[in-house]
């Protein structure tokens, strides 16, 4: 089977984890790594596995535009603005893993099919990928007036980009809870916990429901959604059954990473990169179909 060529911009934690995952894909062929620090661990590894490596970021692609069809941006919201312009100029599809949120939001378990032709899609945040499916699952049974999520990640797994721009995380996630999750109002909180050994990523969803609370139907919808997410993030699970209190439902989640680049505690990294690969594979399948016809 032929593959669609992809490249990664950014050689930090996210970019390095993507490298591991993309090499396992049956429809995507990782060809290029675009970083800024040739001596970084991610760039060194990219060289070792024989990728085209550019240390002037996305601009490297200008000399070799046919090397990729789809780009993953694992840099920062600020850097994404330029990266998105270059991608647009070269006509490459862009999967944005920063909180820049230029393109439409995408959560594979909720709206994967809606944006297959979009030139730029945004993966929201790790907390968004973990919790928005649950908000959506509740919202399909009963309208969610307010959806609030708390993402707790180990300090070890929060890179400098996340730390320097923590408001972007909360603001982008809140928007995703509304636009993709369907809540009328969204709110997101992120907490860093420095405990050693590092804790697994934890996510809690609190939702206020309008009208009758059909506990059985809501719980079933949530469990169904958890299975869907597990199809691309195997370490995603409910910690306990949903807890109901009047019109409030609370859902406790844990995300164990695949342990590809960072250890298993970094479920936050894993859910983001797994979601991105899932989306890229759908993009690729569509392209291959079009080509086959």
């Amino acid at each position, binding site marked *: 089977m032929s593959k669609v060529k992809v490249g990664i911009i950014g050689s930090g934690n996210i970019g390095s984890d993507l490298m591991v995952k993309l090499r396992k894909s049956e429809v995507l062929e990782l060809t290029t790594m675009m970083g800024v620090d040739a001596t970084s661990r991610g760039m060194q590894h990219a060289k070792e596995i024989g990728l085209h490596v550019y240390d002037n970021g996305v601009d490297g692609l200008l000399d070799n535009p046919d090397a990729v069809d789809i780009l993953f941006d694992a840099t920062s919201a600020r850097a994404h603005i330029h990266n998105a312009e270059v991608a647009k100029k070269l006509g490459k599809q862009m999967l944005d893993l920063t909180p820049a949120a230029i393109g439409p939001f995408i959560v594979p378990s909720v709206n994967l099919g809606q944006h297959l032709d979009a030139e730029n899609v945004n993966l929201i945040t790790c907390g968004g990928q973990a919790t928005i499916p649950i908000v959506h699952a509740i919202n399909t049974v009963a309208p969610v007036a*307010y959806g*609030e999520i*708390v993402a*707790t990640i180990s*300090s070890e797994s929060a890179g*400098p980009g996340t*730390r*320097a*721009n*923590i*408001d972007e*995380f*909360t*603001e982008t996630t809140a928007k995703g809870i509304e636009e993709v999750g369907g809540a009328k109002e969204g*709110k997101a*909180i*992120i*907490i*860093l*916990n*420095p*405990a050693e050994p590092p804790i697994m990523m*934890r996510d*809690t969803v*609190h939702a*206020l429901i309008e009208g009758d609370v059909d506990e059985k139907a809501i719980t079933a919808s949530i469990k169904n959604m958890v299975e869907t997410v597990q199809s691309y993030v195997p370490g995603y699970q409910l*910690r*306990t059954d949903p*807890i109901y209190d009047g019109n*409030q439902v*609370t859902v*406790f989640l844990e995300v164990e990473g695949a342990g590809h680049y960072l250890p298993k505690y970094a479920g936050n990294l894993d859910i983001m990169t797994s979601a991105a690969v899932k989306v890229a594979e759908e993009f690729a399948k569509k392209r291959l179909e079009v080509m086959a016809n």
Partner: protein
Amino acid sequence: MTDIKITEVALRDGSHAIRHQYTVDQVRSIAKALNEARVPYIEVSHGDGLGGSTLQYGLSKTNELELVEAAVDAVDFSKIAVLLIPGIGTIEDLKEAEKLGAKMARIATHVTEADVSAQHIQTAKELGMETVGFLMMSHMAPTEKLVEQAKLMESYGADIVYVVDSAGALLPHEVRARIKALKHELSCDIGFHGHNNLSLAMGNSLAAIEEGANRIDGSIRCLGAGAGNTQTEALIAVLDRMGITTGIDLYKMMDIAEEIVAPILPKPQEITRDSLTLGYAGVYSSFLLHANRASEKFGIDSRDILIELGERKIVGGQEDMIIDVAAELASQKANV
């Protein structure tokens, strides 16, 4: 010129103790009276800072920005401070509070996570606010780590860095060592924020002052999370006896405590078995009422919940873990 500058935190930390039910009238009358008593700083926010009104921490009865506005309107001497915990509130929230007249920004992070506060501290400074770096749960890091993190906050522009004993877990010699090291390594002012869970808030505040801290937080009538903070009116009396000036009118503070604040309290602020457990286990003081509720819902002794949270090194803001741990303990109990 005063020796020690006091920040009154009852209208922020006390928000936890009354489940975030402050009204505009209460805030206005307390702020007005504190202003008359010449308290230099009055902190007003949800207990978890701007943006803290949530299902996770408790919804505010009144939008905190209305409370900030009411406090600003009630004062002509005191400065209104707001708390902001990056990850919960945002720079936008801070800008709105500043527009309403807040003059001091207290930017809080867990003691090891100061680098998430860089943007917020810089923005507060750009807005012309007096800016505090607030290192919460200071008992959870050794002194060297605390110094390293405090230096980061100073480098972002903080005018003052606080050692915050959020759990009321620090012992006087531990406070002493921390303040001493900060005084030695930093050039900005140093502050201390205590909780009285181990009945050490006053002793710890005095230890901090002796080592050179010149900013101390208090809550009038102990109206703060857990067993409350250093009781402001008592602190003023003690400092006066020591010949240390705060510029605050002691009798007026006593009257406010007795006549305005005490009637608001659902029950007197005491060291109960649960608040004592907070200090003993090293758990964030605002967990108290949440643990009480989880205890009732799941039929588990709240002390067992708090001890377990302490063992798991749960940090401030992780209120969701209280239910999670209570549910887990309940299922373990059911399986025995």
